[in-house]
């Protein structure tokens, strides 16, 4: 039982990170109806931004501390937001009226470009780097033999905070209302005087900032980072978004947690080598049984 609970805690921690990435996928899909393949690479860039920022921030803030860690995370999120907006502006905006397949292929191209540019020796290099400790690390083992890492608590706290912040932005602010209008009907939204380009840029920025935060949280928990680290979490997060119902924000968070927990349990109890196949197995299952996802609405296709 203790072991099960332990796996559950680890699973929820990993799932929270996936949930943060999945939110970016689901927001972009909700508005533009395409998979932003480069999203996993923005997540990777977030981790690397933290890696290079940590020594700089350490000059004016004590480093393994809550304040210092949050400062690193905040700046990384800002950097990722800018990267997301730039990607959208350069690669996706010129293709706004192109066939979906063209945009999908471009997204794959952008993803490959980021991965291979970062693998270059003059940029980050392909070798894994060890991520510095930015949050103070403690082990808490009192809870009935359960071991809880302070970094995992940071993951839970930051994820909850960001989810509520996102909820506030989407539901209570004017730009959030514009985002919802755009995902409901882009043409009608434009006719109502919404500047669609600004809203789309904002959505990319918001999603990329969340991916950046996820990158930092991932690197804090699994401190070896390399330029290809974004591929698998990115794909799994996409599966999480589909599982929860793509375009649905609470669904993406729920899907992330489910994928994270299932994967950790399978890795713990069956075999860790099947780890990477789990998410895709879930994806195939969900698309066969309920293609609209757990919380998604069924879309009726009109001819």
């Amino acid at each position, binding site marked *: 039982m203790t072991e099960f609970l332990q796996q559950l805690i680890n699973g929820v921690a990993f799932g929270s990170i996936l949930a943060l990435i999945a939110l970016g996928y689901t927001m972009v899909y909700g508005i533009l109806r395409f998979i932003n393949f480069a999203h996993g690479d923005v997540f990777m860039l977030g981790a690397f931004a933290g890696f290079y920022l940590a020594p700089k921030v350490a000059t004016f803030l004590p480093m393994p501390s809550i304040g210092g860690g949050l400062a690193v995370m905040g700046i990384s999120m800002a950097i990722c937001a800018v990267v997301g907006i730039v990607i959208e502006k350069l690669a996706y905006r010129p293709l706004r009226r192109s066939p979906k397949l063209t945009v999908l*292929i471009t997204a794959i191209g952008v993803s490959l470009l980021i991965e291979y540019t970062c*693998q270059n020796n003059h940029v980050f290099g392909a070798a894994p780097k060890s991520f510095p400790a930015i949050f103070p690390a403690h082990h808490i083992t009192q809870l009935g033999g359960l071991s809880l890492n302070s970094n995992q608590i940071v993951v839970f706290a930051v994820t909850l905070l960001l989810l509520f912040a996102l909820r506030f932005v989407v539901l209570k602010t004017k730009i959030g209302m514009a985002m919802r209008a755009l995902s409901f009907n882009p043409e009608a939204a434009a006719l109502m005087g919404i500047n669609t380009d600004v809203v789309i840029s904002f959505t990319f920025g918001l999603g990329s900032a969340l991916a950046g935060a996820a990158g930092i949280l991932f690197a804090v928990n699994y401190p070896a980072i390399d330029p290809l680290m974004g591929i698998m979490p990115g794909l799994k997060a996409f599966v999480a978004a589909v599982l929860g119902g793509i375009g649905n924000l609470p669904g993406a968070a729920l899907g992330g947690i489910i994928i994270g927990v299932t994967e950790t349990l399978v890795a713990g109890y069956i075999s860790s080598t099947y780890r990477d196949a789990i*998410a895709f197995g879930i994806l195939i299952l969900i698309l066969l049984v309920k293609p609209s996802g757990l919380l998604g609405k069924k879309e009726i296709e009109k001819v």
Partner: protein
Amino acid sequence: MNFARTKVFLLERTALYFKYIKTFFLGAVALGSQYTKTCLLATITVCFLVSLFKNQFNSYWLFIGYDIGVNIILAVSLNLINGYTGQFSLGHAGFMAVGAYTAAVITNQFGELNVFFAGAVFLGALLAGGLVAAVTGLLVGIPTLRLRGDYLAIVTLGFGEIIRVIFQNMNAVGGARGLSVSHGWTNFFWAFGFAAVTVYVVTTLVHSTYGRGFIAVRDDEVAASAMGINPTKYKVTAFVIGAFFAGIAGGLYAHSKQFITPGGFNFMESIAIVVMVILGGMGNTIGVILAAVLLTLLPEFLRPVAEYRMIIYSLLLIILMLTRPQGLFSWRKLKN
């Protein structure tokens, strides 16, 4: 000398040369399509004759030649799925893996054989690899092909990864350590013979009365089904045929490299095949063949700048999509 006039002159000249090249290709295609069977037999005979003189060639270029053959098979068969039927599949390397492992396991049962017996065994192993891959394609295709666009892409990617993970966990074929293949039977004849067969089958199929259904499904699924075409049947057929040839390409690949690992068939490999199809122009067999040749040779010429090779690739892909989404060698306008 007026610079502007020179520029106009050069531009006009280039356009003219492109027109000549285009006319030449179209003429060759028209001639070829009249005598398809003769073309096929002639190609296979030439391949056979060339394979007799394989000792005359530099083995480095010989192996690049085999890669070209394998990549032509992969790209042309994926083009049937992606280009002609319009189903975006990202799992072609998975089928290649199935074919490679099946063929390798079969030929590994045999010791040294004489030329004719070896040929028969190799042919049998390749076909078996293709058939197992085709069955896998059927199993993957039936549930997934009701999905469209992005979903299909990600599900086929998922299936490709699942196939890879399964091979990684199969200790009978070496698991993640890989499997060594005892015979290097792939030669010019097999590689290009099968490439010619693939091109023949795909082009004649697509130009047949039955095959028009693939294009109809791509252009408008709803209209096609209103005309009495069963889109799912066509999609699954395309998928199975594509998987069959991918399996054969896998077998050829295994017997040319003589060592295969599950990691060699990951989704980057699938994307490499997709890039060939896109670069050549989806639904344009000649273009796809040219792209397969170009993209196999390019890394060899880019060896001095190997570090930047994949960066150049991905930039090429993005710029191509922004400026010429119908592909380098395609003149057909892409429909929205």
